[in-house]
């Protein structure tokens, strides 16, 4: 009897399945991709690769379609744990677009084949699911849930090319530092809960507004400490100075498609949650936290831009540039007005577009030569391959803020929001950062167009992993029906996650993705007397580069659709 009475009071949370669909699609898609990845034997490797990628793209596309459909309907789901409003939906669309681009870039990358295609794409989908949860979060618990769900797959993905020491190192570094950030965040969230007595953002905001905190906001040490620790936790994820140190190292070591994914989607998620937290939860204390956050933004802009000046690796340059850009966007959050939120979301969208073009060009260049990530590796790209040179040039010009590109429009709107909100000095700092940034963006453009090509020291990923059509050792590209391990059908041909073993004694182990990478290079390189490896330009990578650089110019000249879209974001938060 008591049992029946007890269970009668058990109600699950109210779930609005319709609005929850975008997140569910991502999760469901991830599970499907995971299972497909485990199917079949080694012969089906190439088909597995393409099918999992296809399903992943379909999952992202389906989530975008649903998000467009449920636009304009703000709902709170799962008993107020998540809020699917226009801000969350816009950011979800950005994540999904970034995911699609990352899948296309990973299609024939060594990372996906090393780690196993199913696992790789499933982890990406789970990460985007975490991002969606994070930016919809309405209470501290779901915020942390989303935060971890987004981060943990990324730790693994960074290390997914585990045959390469740099990748493992970057994954480990990200794991350790990311965990420190998460722990700090959790501690801070706990203190905020302790001081305000509630985990819901709305209640926290009400508590601060009504002044029920012990001795007011300034006088409540528990709340302030919690707030500080929360800022630190978010700062780690958004690579805001001085917690940005991990960014260049992790970006450089990680497989480039994952770097592209992290640089765009993760930053969008981190800034999205900063907007939610600061412009919703603690907005009443704006005059207290705004100066501190403005100072952090200033330091970030300076540190990020100055740090990039001495780099020679493209991914490190983009890492530091990302730190600087995070500073610009943080300035938009600082203002605390509707215009500031609009400007930040607009810049996030443009930031995605600008960076993807550059990363796609880097991926393609790394497929062609082993120093593809270096400034020496892109020298003479203008003459060698205009299809990559122009997207890279347009991306660099856009990031610098040259008119005619989305970078200019984004900076214009940010400066507009800052001057409007009374932060003209921060606008001056923003353009100061832009001036400094010219030093390294122009260096990249100069390398592409104004320097002579340097001979390639080694073959690129494409050839080394046997995916090149012109490469000797008898392996055909998977599209042509061959498989990387032409004669090795044994245990060595399955990725270890699926049970294969790299040390298995298979005859063909030396030809393809074998542990003796150097041996393979030697074997392959001897077939080529010329210093340049003949590798195919992967069409899907070039497609990503061209589409995003075309978008960079198109939205730079006709930005009105983007303005209309992001206007919903600020309105959704009910700011002025």
């Amino acid at each position, binding site marked *: 009897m008591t049992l029946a009475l007890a269970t009668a009071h058990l109600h699950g949370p109210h779930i609005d399945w319709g609005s929850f669909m975008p997140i569910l699609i991502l999760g469901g898609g991830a599970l499907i991709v995971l299972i497909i990845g485990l199917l079949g034997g080694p012969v089906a490797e190439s088909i597995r690769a393409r099918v999992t990628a296809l399903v992943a793209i379909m999952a992202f596309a389906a989530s975008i379609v649903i998000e467009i459909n449920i636009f304009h309907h703000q709902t709170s789901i799962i008993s107020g744990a998540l809020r699917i409003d226009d801000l969350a939906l816009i950011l979800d669309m950005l994540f999904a677009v970034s995911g699609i681009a990352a899948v296309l870039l990973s299609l024939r990358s060594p990372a996906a084949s090393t780690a196993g295609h199913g696992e790789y794409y499933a982890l990406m989908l789970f990460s985007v699911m975490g991002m969606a949860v994070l930016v919809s979060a309405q209470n501290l618990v779901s915020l942390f849930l989303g935060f971890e769900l987004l981060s943990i797959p990324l730790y693994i993905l960074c290390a997914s090319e585990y045959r390469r020491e740099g990748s493992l190192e970057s994954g480990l570094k990200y794991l350790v530092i990311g965990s420190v950030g998460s722990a700090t965040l959790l501690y801070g969230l706990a203190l905020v809960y302790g001081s305000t007595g509630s985990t819901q953002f709305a209640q926290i905001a009400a508590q601060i507004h009504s002044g029920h905190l012990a001795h007011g906001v300034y006088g409540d040490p528990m709340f302030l400490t919690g707030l500080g620790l929360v800022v630190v936790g978010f700062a780690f994820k958004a690579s805001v100075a001085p917690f940005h140190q991990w960014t260049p190292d992790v970006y450089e070591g990680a497989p480039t498609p994952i770097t592209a994914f992290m640089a765009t989607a993760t930053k969008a998620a981190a800034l999205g949650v900063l907007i939610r937290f600061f412009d919703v939860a603690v907005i009443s204390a704006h005059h207290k936290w705004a100066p501190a956050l403005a100072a952090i933004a200033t330091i970030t802009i300076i540190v990020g831009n100055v740090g990039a000046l001495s780099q020679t690796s493209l991914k490190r340059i983009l890492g530091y540039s990302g730190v600087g850009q995070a500073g610009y966007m943080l300035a938009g959050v600082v203002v605390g007005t509707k215009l500031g939120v609009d400007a930040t979301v607009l810049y996030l969208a443009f930031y995605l577009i600008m960076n993807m073009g550059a990363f796609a060009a880097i991926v393609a260049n790394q497929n062609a030569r082993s120093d593809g990530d270096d400034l020496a590796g892109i020298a003479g790209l203008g003459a060698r391959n205009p299809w990559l040179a122009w997207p890279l040039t347009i991306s660099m010009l856009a990031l610098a803020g040259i008119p005619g590109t989305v970078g200019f429009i984004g900076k214009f709107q940010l400066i*507009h929001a800052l001057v409007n909100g009374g932060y003209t000095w921060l606008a*001056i700092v923003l*353009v100061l950062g832009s001036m400094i940034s010219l030093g390294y963006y122009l260096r990249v*453009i100069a390398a592409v167009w104004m320097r002579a090509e340097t001979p390639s020291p080694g073959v690129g990923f494409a050839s080394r992993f046997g995916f090149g059509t012109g490469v000797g050792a008898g392996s055909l590209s998977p599209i042509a029906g061959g498989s990387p391990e032409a004669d090795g059908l044994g245990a060595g041909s399955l990725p270890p996650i699926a049970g294969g073993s790299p040390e298995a004694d298979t005859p063909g182990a030396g030809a393809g993705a074998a542990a003796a990478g150097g041996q393979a290079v030697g074997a392959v390189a001897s077939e080529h007397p010329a210093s340049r490896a003949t590798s195919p330009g992967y069409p899907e990578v070039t497609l990503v580069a061209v589409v995003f650089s075309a978008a960079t110019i198109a939205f730079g000249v006709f930005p009105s659709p983007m*303005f209309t879209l992001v*206007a919903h974001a600020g309105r959704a938060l009910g700011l002025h």
Partner: protein
Amino acid sequence: MTLTILIWLPLAAGLIGALLLPAQLARVAAVVGSLATVGIAISFVARFHSGRSGLQFVTDRVWISSLGIHYKLGLDGLNVLLILIATIVFAAGILYAAGQEWDNPRVFYLNFALAESAVLGAFCAQDLALFVVFFDLMLIPFYFLSGIWGGEDRIRATTKLVIYTLIGSFLMLVAAIATGVIASSEHHTPITFVISQLQGLPLSHTSQIWIFACFAVAFLVKMPLVPFHGWLPDGYKAMPIPAVAVFSGILSKVAAYGFLRIVLPLFPYASVHFQTLMLIIALVSVLWGTVVAMTTPDARLVVAYSSVAQLGFIVLGIFTLTPQGTQGALIQMANHALVTVPLFFVVAAAAMRAGGSEKLADMGGIAFRAPLLATLALIVTLATLAMPGSSNFVGEFNILLGLFDSKLPIALIAAGAGVTGAAAYALRLYIRAMHNRVGAKVTSFEIRRWEAVAIVPMVLLILVFAFYPQFALRRSQPSVDRTVAAAKTPSVRPGAAAASTSPPRKPGKVRFTATVVSK
């Protein structure tokens, strides 16, 4: 025939040449496009009504509605002649370039095309944000032109040029946005960047001061004037000749035009407040540019520093805040463009005949086997030093007349020294290159057809202008009066009061020099 076609035709021709035509025909597309644009500009000048002071041929469409930015173009007395000069300068540059072979010609001519569209857009723009867009955009093609096809040490020089210029331009961006925001918030109107609307929304004095400073820095770096000229020697030396001719000819004028279009009408209090400082900066530039041009051993740098001096004169004329001074400045903008372009071509021609060296010490006696070239060079040189009878003389006379009326009559003495110095460096260049003993490395030959195609039309235009400067003065008079009046009206400074008590000079005074020549 709208201004939109005028502005975007060069870029369209450049894109056709870059994407659709084979590499050998890229120059054809560029030449055809630039000549067609000259034709369209002539049609606009012909249809322009001289008596009116408002905007004509207006195109006004909303570009970004939430920011109040309009795609607004229009012609009035300030820019009608400048667009014609701009198209002529670009046509001359492209014709000169078409006579030579370049690597990757598609991208080469595309850069010129983009630059021309951006410059024309900057001249026609009637919206502050649109002006800033075109102003920043017109620099980028020169980064590529310099860096890919330039001389030695080109990458460092062009990076320095771009960063220097964009420092000023980014400050101008903040100032421009602040203008729109402050104007709309102080007058409680929706935000707008249209210049005609902003003129009705004056800013507070403190805002005007810092915003003026930012705009001034941006424009001064572009021209360049002392002390923002650090990029000049390396930058000018690194550019290929067609690019430096166009850069010196017309890009510097966009900056001077910016003062007239934006700074004087929108920030009148600050213009008067900073008048003395700007006059001093202009004067120092005149003197310093003249002195260095007189002593530098490199022929290209003589022309480069003479540009500094000439732009100093133009800014001097603008900041007299008188109609004569401004008219003089406008006509000098056109004159200097017409003169400096063939002068760079002459320097290049001389260098080609001196074993490739641009040092004056290596030149000499080139006129002996190239009399036609020497004659053309002489006409250009005499125009540079503002020989009475040339249009440059009319311009400088007007500027000095305006200076006499302004705050610093004593400046007249120093400016006069600048005029005399111009004769010194211009004649030095000519004599050292063309006359005197034949230089050791010199093998002179007569002017080639491809050089003549670019130089001769410009010389003819210089001569036409010399005989009929009224062509320019008549069209710009009403707009100049309006601009100067706007800069003088709301001030309460004693300096301005003194200026307004001097007897008003009728426009008829300006016609004095021109009626000597038959009309």
